[in-house]
């Protein structure tokens, strides 16, 4: 539903010269607090947005908001922000309430559990509690695929999710792969299964009245890819050596 020819118009913003971006932090490695950063946050999404905003000559303000309100379009419709950059998967349901940019990252789902636990696949979840984040594709995937005896417990953000896993409130977490991978660093937890859900993240704007902004985002995203800056940032967060 994007209209490329509108690109020349000045995008209408909540406060002129400032791009207000909603995100659900912490969601490492996509968005998490960083005192060194001028916006207070860094991560893959944040750096891409910073680069795009720099091209558009805009300041960036980051607002931490619940993911549920972001993915439903409520935060955008309520005028809390111009743009959502929150590792948000492009889905048909969401398209009904908001408009997505071109995809900027491809992702999968995964299951995180304690290293060496009995849980080796999704079928082992029978009789356990599985943590998911409210309103996410991971929550949807879990709902569709876990065995009947598993109890899905939803948390407002990934922060509580991981805290619940470490405190024993849940036995496994079903979440986007890059995020779960972050929690395997200390060796206590491991990814026991990956699910190829074929999902891509997009930035989102509100349904009506943000056509100019969306076009500009898309243009600048493409420019980043063309200049190689996108790859630099990508390598920084997802280098696989």
């Amino acid at each position, binding site marked *: 539903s994007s209209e490329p020819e509108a690109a020349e118009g000045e995008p209408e913003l909540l406060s002129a010269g400032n791009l207000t971006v909603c995100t659900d932090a912490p969601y490492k490695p996509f968005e998490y607090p960083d005192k060194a950063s001028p916006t207070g946050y860094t991560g893959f999404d944040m750096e891409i947005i910073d680069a795009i905003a720099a091209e558009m000559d805009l300041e960036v303000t980051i607002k931490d908001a619940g993911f*549920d*309100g972001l*993915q*439903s*379009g*409520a935060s955008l419709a309520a005028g809390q922000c111009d743009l959502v950059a929150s590792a948000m998967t492009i889905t048909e349901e969401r398209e*009904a*309430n908001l408009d997505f940019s071109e995809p900027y990252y491809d992702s999968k789902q995964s299951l995180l559990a304690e290293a060496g636990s009995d849980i080796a696949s999704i079928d082992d979840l029978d009789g356990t*509690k599985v*943590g998911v984040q*409210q*309103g996410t594709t991971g929550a949807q995937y879990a709902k569709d695929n876990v065995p009947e005896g598993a*109890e*899905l*417990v*939803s*948390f*407002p953000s990934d922060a*509580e*999710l991981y*805290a*619940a896993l*470490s*405190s*024993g*409130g*849940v036995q496994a977490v079903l979440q986007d792969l890059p995020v779960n991978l972050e929690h395997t660093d200390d060796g206590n937890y491991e990814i026991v299964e990956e699910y190829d859900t074929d999902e891509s993240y997009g930035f989102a704007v509100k349904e009506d009245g943000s056509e100019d902004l969306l076009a500009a985002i898309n243009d600048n995203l493409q420019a980043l890819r063309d200049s190689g800056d996108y790859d630099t940032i990508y390598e920084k967060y997802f280098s696989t050596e």
Partner: protein
Amino acid sequence: MKRTTKKRLTRGVMYLIFVAAILALVLAADWAAIQKAFFNVDIARDAFPDVIVIAAKNTIVYTAIAFAGGMVFGLVLALMKLSPVAPYRWAATIYIEFFRGLPALLVIFTFAFAVPIAFQWRPPGGSAGAGLLALIIVSAAYIAETIRAGIQAVPKGQVEAAHSLGMPAGWTMVSVVLPQAFRIVIPPLTNELVVLIKDTSLLFIAGMAIQQQELTTFARDSVSSVGNSTPLTIAALMYLAVTLPLTRLVAYMERRGARGR
């Protein structure tokens, strides 16, 4: 100016202001939009029966558990605070002041996530259980103060009359003080119940399964899934259906109590 003339004039002006305010509200608001957003009949219909059999039910169950737990624990604390043994008094005072000074949300978060890690101990019922435990612990602090105040509000003359008749302290407490304290604390305890009903809306931070959602969480969840605010309206009505009668009852009891003395 004569009294009645002046009074009539002021009254007239006040009525005019009121009517103007109402008119302004009626004309300014976009009623169609409001109805569509907050009173959408189809969406309301869809919310049933879940909003009753899950959300309202859970709100009531959580409130009942937290209140029952808070009562038991709060009574113990109240008696400790009135105990002749100083360390009991101190312990109760510290506990009560501590938990009355913190936001319930912070306590719930701490019990759901920080306590299990530090103590290697998980409250039964997973993180929802931990959240409820936190609510019990917080409400016990308030209930203890209420009960203590109730016991102390029984006139000293009552105890003295009982002692003069030769009644020992234990019997005096049971037959004379507690029955009167109980009547005194019913209104403030009912208020505490209303507070608890509302505080169950904070439990979501501890994480919940769909089956565990209470009214506020349910409403917020539905708002984002249906993209319409009608579930908020329904939840609000549900809360009011419980809290309003309770607060009216408290007001009634307080009026009657005030007259009775």
